[in-house]
């Protein structure tokens, strides 16, 4: 029996599947936390969750509502200071996966979470800002981006570079001295984009079940490259869906 599922659920499941067991993952709140906790409860029981609030190896029994949730500290192997989490744990490249999102992304995976429109001093919309993203993007071994896809968010050129993907193309990360591999996957509600090995341009490699290439192109603000025969992602399994929904249920009461 295959249950019906939403595009957002597919996105969470795809993000969770990208995390390998035993790896260490730098998690932000929202979709990344959902994905990481889903992975830990399905195929990756030994995934190490690291939150920028300083919790190393958190094993929350419910979805945390903020990166400083008490459930994280209570269940962590160790809680360290914020300077330590950035200096001793993130900066040296010890962390396998970092999750990022943002308001805009361009075809080289550069992300904007700072301003939209106008200029920096007088923006049309002032967003929260970069937070931990510049160094997560630089230092995690691999970056996973999770964002809903639309022409508003997938743009030819971002209004502000809050965190660097591949800069202006292949070789830029090396020139800049960034040591992590950069955004190896951009996971959306419509599919998955990965950097082209030759150009580092984000290229559609996987479609969500039910989505087609034209639909993804129409939701992308640049002329999206597509691999010859994009794989259709496997639909969420019954277990994945059940665990995902259980996790989500743990926060709905609080957020009502």
């Amino acid at each position, binding site marked *: 029996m295959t249950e019906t599922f939403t595009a957002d659920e597919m996105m969470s499941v795809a993000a969770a599947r990208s995390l390998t067991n035993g790896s260490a993952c730098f998690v932000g709140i929202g979709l990344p936390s959902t994905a990481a906790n889903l992975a830990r409860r399905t195929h990756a029981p030994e995934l190490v969750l690291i939150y920028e609030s300083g919790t190393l190896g958190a094993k929350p029994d419910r979805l945390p509502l903020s990166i400083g949730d008490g459930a994280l500290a209570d269940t962590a192997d160790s809680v360290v200071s914020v300077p330590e989490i950035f*200096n001793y744990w993130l900066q040296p490249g010890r962390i396998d996966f970092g999750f990022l999102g943002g308001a805009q992304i361009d075809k080289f995976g550069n992300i904007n979470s700072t301003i939209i429109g106008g200029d920096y001093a007088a923006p049309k919309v002032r967003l929260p800002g970069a937070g931990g993203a510049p160094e997560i993007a630089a230092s995690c071994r691999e970056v996973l981006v999770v964002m809903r896809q639309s022409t508003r968010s997938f743009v030819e050129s971002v209004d502000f570079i809050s965190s660097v993907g591949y800069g202006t193309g292949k070789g830029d990360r090396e020139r800049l001295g960034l040591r992590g591999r950069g955004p190896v996957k951009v996971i959306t509600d419509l599919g998955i984009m990965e950097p082209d090995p030759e150009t580092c341009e984000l290229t559609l490699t996987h479609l969500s079940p039910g989505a087609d290439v034209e639909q993804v192109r129409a939701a992308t603000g640049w002329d999206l490259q597509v691999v010859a025969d994009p794989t259709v992602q496997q639909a969420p399994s019954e277990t994945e869906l059940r665990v995902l929904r259980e996790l989500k249920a743990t926060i709905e009461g609080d957020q009502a």
Partner: protein
Amino acid sequence: MARILTLSEAIAELVADGDAIALEGFTHLIPVAAGHEIIRQGKRDLTLCRMTPDIVYDQLIGAGCARKLVFSWGGNPGVGSLHRFRDAVQHSWPRPLEIEEHSHAGMANRYAAGASGLPFAILRGYTGTDLPAQTDSIKTVTCPFTGEVLAAVPALNPDVGVVHAQQADREGNVQMWGITGVQKETVLASKRSLVTVEEIVDELTPRPGAVVLPTWAVTAVAEVPGGAHPSYAQGYSERDNAHYQRWDAISRDRAEFESWLSREGLADRSAR
């Protein structure tokens, strides 16, 4: 030796118009009551420093206390935008707000440099982003051994550092546990410091993961039970998530915000 004061005495004595102040607490242990007392006392022209300005800074900005914000992420965690912060940046309401924007790693290292008595800190940070072009306090230094170029940020040494903790003893020694963020660095980096606590106890019982600030490193302690609400104090209270949700509606509208200020008794001496 820290002095035990009331919150209103402490704010009156420690915070002056024009000061640079830092209220820290990373989601947990946010010194919200101290922020409200600053609004109540009508402090003005403050430079507000905080890694994650959240609703208490939204309130300080909306109430017109701030001239400048030094920060790395200004949002309502788990909810969305800070509308008073946006209104100040986008429309200069109630007054223009200068901003000095960093990343979390940069801010954490600025406090650590401040606590260490160093003029600056180095980190692998900001590379390739548009932040250095907008923020004067991001520069570079070259490693004298390898020739590598690294980011440099200046020490942050606020006039006043304010944090909330679970406990102090009667001598003013402070203990906090759970997620302790950048609070030790904030107190040590600041010229003067205030710690609000859930309770003053006869003796601090050592706890796993606790950070202890000795009394001689703290200027003042004030007992303010619930002083972190709507954030939480592990072992004393839970995060009031609904309050963060409600703030979104209250803060979207200027009039709604001003009536909130009045309702909370925070508008009296604020002379906008």
